C-alpha cells in the first residue's frame, strides 16, 4: 500500500523564490489496484513519484510505501519498490545479463535466490535471445524488456510507472500495458503516472488528477465523469484543471 497525506515539495528557485512542485497531494493506493496520476507535463507527477521513491525528500507531509515512511526508512522503501520510466536508460556497455545481475546485487539478492529470479525474468521477458549483446546494441523494444526485468527482478510489492509508454511504438506500448495489468492481477500496488487518457481509461482503477502540484480531483473514471458532468475523460480532465482555450478563433 502507498499512502500520502498533504505531501509537499517546494524547490528554491533563484528567479521566483520558491517553486511549489507538489503542494499538498493526498491519496492512497492499494494492492491489486492501479492508481493513475493524471496530469499535464510539469503538473508534479514525477516529483511525487520521486518523493515516493526516496530520490528526493518531501518538504512536508507524509508519504508511506509498503508501510514504511519515506523519511524514516528510505532503504526499506527502496527495497519495496520497482520504478520504471521510458526515460530510464540502461548501461550501454553492459549486457542485459550483467545488468540484471548487477541490479540483483544492489537489491541484496544473492546465491540461489538471485539465480532463481534471473531465470524467472529471463523466461518471462524472453531475454535469452539478446542477453549477451551490449545494451547499446538493443532495439527500443528489447531495451524496454530489459527495463521491465530490472524493475520486477526483486519482486517488489509496489510498482511505480512514470509515463512508461512515451516514445514507444504501439507494439511496445501494448507489452508495457499488459505487464502493468498482470502486476495488478498478481496483487501489486501500482501507481501509474501519465497524460495519455486512453491508457488511464484502460488501466486505472482510480485516478488522481494532478495540476500545478495539487490534486484537483480523485475517483474512478465514472465518478470523475459524473462529478464534472462531462461525456469524456479528456473533457472531465480539462474541466477539473480549469482549462481555458487560448485559441483566438474559439475564444471570440
Amino acid at each position, binding site marked *: 500500500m502507498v499512502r500520502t497525506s498533504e505531501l509537499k515539495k517546494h524547490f528554491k528557485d533563484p528567479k521566483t523564490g520558491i517553486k511549489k512542485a507538489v503542494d499538498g497531494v493526498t491519496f492512497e493506493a492499494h494492492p491489486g489496484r492501479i492508481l493513475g496520476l493524471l496530469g499535464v507535463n510539469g503538473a508534479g507527477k514525477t516529483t511525487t513519484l520521486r518523493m515516493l521513491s526516496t530520490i528526493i525528500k518531501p518538504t512536508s507531509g507524509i508519504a508511506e510505501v509498503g508501510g514504511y515512511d519515506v523519511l524514516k526508512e528510505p532503504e526499506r522503501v527502496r527495497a519495496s519498490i520497482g520504478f520504471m520510466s521510458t526515460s*530510464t536508460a540502461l548501461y550501454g556497455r553492459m549486457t542485459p545479463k550483467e545488468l540484471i545481475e548487477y541490479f540483483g546485487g544492489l537489491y541484496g539478492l544473492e546465491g540461489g535466490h538471485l539465480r532463481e529470479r534471473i531465470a524467472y525474468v529471463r523466461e518471462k521477458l524472453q531475454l535469452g535471445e539478446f542477453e549477451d549483446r551490449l545494451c547499446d546494441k538493443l532495439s527500443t523494444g528489447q531495451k524496454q524488456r530489459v527495463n521491465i526485468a530490472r524493475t520486477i527482478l526483486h519482486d517488489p510489492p509496489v510498482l511505480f510507472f512514470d509515463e512508461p509508454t512515451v516514445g514507444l511504438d504501439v507494439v511496445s506500448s501494448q507489452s508495457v500495458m499488459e505487464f502493468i495489468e498482470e502486476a495488478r492481477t498478481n496483487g501489486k500496488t501500482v501507481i501509474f503516472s501519465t497524460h495519455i487518457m486512453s491508457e488511464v481509461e484502460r488501466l486505472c482503477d482510480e485516478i488522481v488528477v494532478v495540476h500545478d502540484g495539487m490534486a484537483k480531483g480523485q475517483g474512478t473514471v465514472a465518478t470523475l465523469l459524473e462529478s464534472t458532468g462531462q461525456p469524456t475523460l479528456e473533457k472531465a480532465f480539462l474541466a477539473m484543471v480549469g482549462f481555458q482555450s487560448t485559441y483566438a478563433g474559439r475564444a471570440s
Partner: protein
Amino acid sequence: MRMTFHVFKKESRDILRDKRVLRMAFIMPIFLVAMMMSLFGFLTTAISKTHGQIVYVVKTKNPAEKLIVQKPFEVVEIPDVSTGRKLIREGKAHIVLSYGEMKPDGQTVIDAYVDPKEQTSQIALAMVSKLYDVHNKKKLETLLEENRLPLSSEEVYKVRQQDVSVGEQAGASDILIGILPYLIVMYAFYGGMSIAADMIAGEKEKNTLETLLISPAHRTNIVLGKFLALATVCLISSLSCFLGLVLVAAVKPPGTAEMMKGGFGVTPMAFFVTMIVLMPLVAFFASALVAISSFARNSREAQTYLTQFSFVIILPAMFSQFIGYTDMGHSQWINFIPVLNAANNIRMALMGRVDMTSLAITIGVSLVIALIALRITVKLFNKEEVLVRV
C-alpha cells in the same frame, strides 16, 4: 562494504569496456613516455653532434682557418660578410666566421656572426669556441715550455670536479628525472579525467542514476564504489608511464640509447616510493573528480569544470620539471604543497635519494587532503539539490 565492492566491480568493468579510457588512460601514457624518450634522446644526440656542422667562412688567407677545415666541420666559403649576414637572416646559416688579419703579436680576431635567438647558432658558436680554446691552450703550453715555465702557470687556479655519491648509485638519467615525475603525476589525474565526466554527470544525463538511487544501496556505498574504480584507473594510468619505460628499455627505439645508457634508471626503491606517494594522491584526485562529476548537471558541464580544475593540478606538476634548477627541491616547505610535493619526492627517488621526513610529510599532507576531499564528495553525493539538479 559488500555493496561498495559490488558497485566497484560494475564500474571497473564499464570503464574497461570504454575504448576512450583504454586509449587515454592506459595506452597514451605508454606511448607518450616512449615518444618523449625517443625525442629527447634524438635531441641530445643532435646537440652533441659535431660531424657535418656547416660553418660558413668569409674567404681568407689567414692560416687560422685551416683549424676549422681540419676538424669535422663542413666549411663553405663565401665572398664577404654581407653574404654571411644574408644567409643567417634567411635561416640558411647557423654561423659565419670572418677572420681578421694576424696582428704582429700573433693574435687573430675571428668575428663569429650568429643569430643570438637561434639555439642552433649558439650550439655552433660553442663548438667553434671550444675548438679554438683547445688550440689556444696548446699554444700557451708550448710557449710555457719554451720559456721553461711550469705548465701549471697556465692555470693558477684549477677547479677539479670530484663526484660525491648521494643515495643509490643506479639513478635515472637527468632528462628522465625531469620528465618522469611530471608525467606520473599528470596521468594520475588525466587518466581519471577521461572517465570522470561520464561517471555521475553522464549518468544524470542518461537517466541511469535514478535507477541506482532507487535501489536499497546506500548512496555512500554507491559513491565509494565509483571513487574506488576511478582511483584504480588513476593509479594504473599513472603507473603506465613505467610500462612505457619498460617498453623503451626492451624495444630500444631510435635515439633512446643515450637516455638509457645508465640502464633502466628506476630502482626498486624509486618504484616503491612512487607507489606510496601516489596512493594518497590518486585518492585525492579521484575524490575531486567524483565531486566535480556529482556537481555537474551533465557530461559537458563536467568536462568544463574538469578542464578548469586540471590547471590547478598541472601547474605544480609542471613546476616539478624545473625544480632541479633551484634549491627548493631540498626545502622542507615544498613537502606541504599538494601535487608538487609528490612530484618532488618521486624526482628525488629517481635520483636515488630518499628522505624519510620529506616522504612522511608528503604522504601525510596528501592523505589529509584526500580524506577531506572524499568527505566532501560523499556529502555532495548525498545532497539532493546536487544530485537531482538538471
